[in-house]
């Protein structure tokens, strides 16, 4: 488990003990992992890091409303089938040349039927690709809550038995069990049946030290002092009653913005200009500015006196 955690760290993903344990279990038990949590806490990133650690190919299925099996599983390539029939017309002619009755011709044709419903004409979509891949893969099913409820039912076969039934061909069994990671933003309840088949991992906003570690890892150019100040500010923003709390990815964007602007201090001016990277609603922005600037002293001084402890004073 520790080694898994370390190798995730090498992939620039800071995993908590919990995440490492769950992933370890997922590998051992061969079960999919369902990760939930607010947007932008690194759920998708986790799958990418996992693919990096195991050296597997990442196959991603982005879910959306109206996603159906032809987009997720497989589709017959009608055009190719038609094209082949056109091109093979002469050959067909030969095959059917010395038949005497219509019945005999049909019989003979039906013997050749398999040619047209073979893997050759099967357009592989992400799920089928993950199942049939010669090399082991990591399958990421992203934002499953956006897909329709029926689509979930459809995933059940894939997730529990790692097999796919294609009526014309038969059941296709996985060559290697892919490591499956599902993510959900919890916009709707997922079905019990789906949850039952998965390991559950809830990722919340990280604690201060952890987030700081992420920022230091991903944006090493930012000075340690400023990084700490920035993360403290973000953490205090999350405790405010905002319409959308800033996520880790937004913290990173902000950190990069600070580097680009060559900021060496979080003074009022810098905040004014860059806060919109963190907060995406006008009302949130107004509220945050009111709270940050309406203090008796400018926020910068307060933080310099006592560092860590002051973040509590912003909570309201």
């Amino acid at each position, binding site marked *: 488990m520790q080694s898994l955690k370390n190798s995730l760290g090498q992939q620039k993903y800071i995993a908590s003990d919990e995440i490492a344990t769950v992933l370890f279990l997922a590998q051992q038990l061969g079960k999919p992992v369902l990760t939930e*949590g607010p947007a932008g806490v690194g759920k998708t990133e986790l799958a990418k890091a996992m693919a990096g650690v195991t050296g597997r190919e990442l196959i991603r299925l982005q879910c959306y409303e109206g996603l159906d099996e032809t987009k997720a599983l497989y589709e017959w390539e009608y055009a190719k089938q038609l094209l082949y029939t056109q091109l093979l017309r002469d050959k067909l002619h030969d095959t059917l040349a010395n038949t005497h009755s219509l019945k005999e011709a049909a019989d003979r044709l039906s013997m050749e039927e398999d040619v047209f419903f073979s893997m050759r004409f099967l357009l592989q979509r992400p799920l089928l690709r993950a199942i049939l891949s010669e090399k082991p893969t990591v399958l990421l099913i992203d934002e499953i809550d956006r897909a329709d409820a029926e689509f979930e039912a459809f995933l059940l076969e894939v997730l529990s038995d790692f097999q796919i039934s294609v009526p014309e061909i038969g059941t296709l069994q996985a060559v290697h069990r892919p490591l499956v990671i599902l993510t959900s933003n919890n916009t709707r309840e997922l079905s019990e049946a789906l949850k039952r088949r998965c390991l559950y991992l809830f990722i919340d906003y990280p604690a201060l030290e952890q987030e700081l570690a992420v920022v230091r890892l991903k944006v090493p150019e930012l000075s340690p002092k400023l990084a700490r100040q920035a993360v403290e500010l973000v953490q205090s923003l999350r405790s405010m009653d905002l319409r959308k709390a800033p996520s880790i990815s937004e913290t990173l964007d902000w950190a990069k913005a600070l580097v680009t602007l060559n900021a060496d201090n979080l003074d009022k001016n810098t905040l004014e200009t860059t806060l919109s990277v963190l907060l995406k609603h006008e009302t949130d922005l107004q509220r945050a500015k009111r709270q940050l600037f309406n203090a008796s002293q400018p926020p910068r001084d307060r933080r310099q006196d006592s560092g860590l402890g002051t973040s509590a004073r912003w909570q309201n």
Partner: protein
Amino acid sequence: MDQRIAQFIAALRASGVRISLAESADAFQAVDEVGIMDRDTFRIGLRTTLVKEARDLDTFEKLFPLFFQSSAPPPMMDATKGMTPQEAQMLAQALRQFTEEMRQMLEKLLKGQPLSQQELRQLDQMMNMDGINDMRYQNWLTRQMEEAMKFKEVRQAMEELLKMLREMGMNRQQIDQLREAMQANQQALQEQLRQHAGEAIAQNMVNKPREEDTDGAMNRPFRALSEEDMQTLRKEVRRLAAALRTRLALRLRRARTGQLDPKGTLRVNMKHDSVPIVLKHRDHTLKPKVVVICDISTSMRYTSELMLSMLFAIQDQISKTHAFAFIDHLEYITPYFQGKDPSDAVREILYLMPSGHYNTDLGSSLLSFSKEFMDTVDHRSTLIFVGDGRNNFNDPRLDIFHTLARRSRATIWLNPEPAALWGTGDSDMLKYAPYCGRIFQVGNLAQLADAVDQLLLH
């Protein structure tokens, strides 16, 4: 250990976490993998296999320490250690002044001995703990145990003892030390009792019989529901909503056979050299927009809550929901439902407008609706009223109601009262009725489910 895990799973089930057989099997498998040596990994292993909903995580974290902890009581300190023989003599002499029972307790506190298993068992026999199977009683039970142990008297005796020692001439520093140690030890005992109470309750939860089925509650009128029935119903609503959602989605899909869309067809068939192999149709149906106006006065509270829960559970089948609540004035309540349990949201809303001295007044609520929120109603929205139409003889404002009904695609009224009661007393239902497209009587959950299914039908 397996036994203990099985008990833990039973307790989780008893506190309302849904765990299937397959999941408990997974848990055992996970434990085999991670082992039980490291308590934290063990906990995460169990949690990831057993708990599949964020809202159940709290329950898990609360129950886990009760089942899996080193049963060692909290550490205590021995206050008599650093004493000179002379001081020890004094103490023994002072202790002799108390009754037998009190002396034992005081000695325990002085020496820092935790309660033994036997003493705990005796305590259990004194308390009647059968049937206490809810974690909310833990603090209460702890207090009961403290009382049985005469904590208050012991505290007094402690003060007396210290006073006596001072009179006997023990030095001040030593006395202060004694006091601190004894207080700390008493707190440790309290903690031990708390743990014990929790374990006892957890044990009761394991033995708790399975919940009765929900059929009875489905058909019971809303008026006759208790808070416990409400709990089962809330669960039931979730299940029903899932079923409804699938049904609605299917209906939407089947209805997707509109006109041929030539542009779309051309675009899709580009790769086939514009030979129309795949046909595209225009989407025929639109997801409904819903504006719901709920009466949340005392008589209507449960109906409205369940209706709102149902609506917000099938949110993905509706393109937009605007919810309003009123008693004497109107409030826009949609924001309260975002990312929250509907029952909590309703409680918050009730806090916003506590029912009480003022009266239900749909008329003035309609007026403020037409002033501020008229733009939420258009030809695509279904307008739903949930209420009993009892206006306390205020002006019903039929003119506004009529305008709203004309503006919206459909106007639907859900009323818990049977039709025979409409128009009696202060009910304005008969006056509103002609403007409504459909009126459903929703006296119980079964009827409510039917109504919701119907009202999204176009």
